[in-house]
């Protein structure tokens, strides 16, 4: 059973990313969208946590939400991949279920 975990709130506003990463099991996938994209950026206090998560899970960030907030893809942590809505749909289809960390 593989899970796509979605995180839509900023890690500086809520603990949703932290909770998600502590629950996501090896082989799972995390997608950051909406305000959650801030967790995907280099140079933040959660960067280490996200990099460490990359050992166990795949991490993606929703491109349209990055762009909307003024961040280019080169500001994203290495290893975190950018997807669009079509890619989001693919991730949902490829994993066995989706779990939203609101």
């Amino acid at each position, binding site marked *: 059973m593989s899970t796509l975990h979605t995180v839509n709130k900023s890690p500086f506003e809520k603990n949703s990313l932290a909770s998600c990463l502590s629950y996501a099991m090896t082989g799972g996938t995390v997608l950051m969208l909406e305000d959650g994209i801030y967790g995907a950026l280099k140079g933040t206090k959660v960067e280490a946590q996200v990099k460490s998560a990359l050992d166990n899970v795949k991490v993606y960030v929703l491109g349209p939400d990055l762009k909307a907030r003024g961040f280019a893809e080169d500001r994203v942590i290495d290893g975190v991949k950018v997807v669009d809505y079509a890619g989001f749909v693919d991730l949902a289809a490829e994993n066995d279920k989706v*779990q939203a960390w*609101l």
Partner: protein
Amino acid sequence: MSGVIKNFMYLNRRAPYGTIYAWESLEVVLIGAAFDQDVSLAFVDDGVYQLVKGQQTAEIGMKNFSPTYSALGDYEVKKIFVETESLEERGLTPDDLQHLVWEDEDDDWAERDSIRFVSRAELAEIMEASDVVFSF
């Protein structure tokens, strides 16, 4: 209804009364009970506050919906997971929470505890094994 039985996980991460999510998610659980699925509830992060006993809501003018948790057993909801780390982070112990039970008709209606206190690691495995997760 359809013959399909899925493992449903209702994920509760928010405190009661400050927002409506706790109450409206309970309404989903109650309606969902009629569909004979394999139901689990998880209380994680601030969700553990929903189960604190002794809620008196008169002075904030809201309906105290906490008695509804004790009715869950009658709705065949027997698997209520409370994450121990979330309790500890909040200075709570199992004694702070309601004692929820269900009646085992296979054992002369003996009362059994509905709440299972589990670690984050244990709950992660339980959630991973579920088929559908409802988030509120």
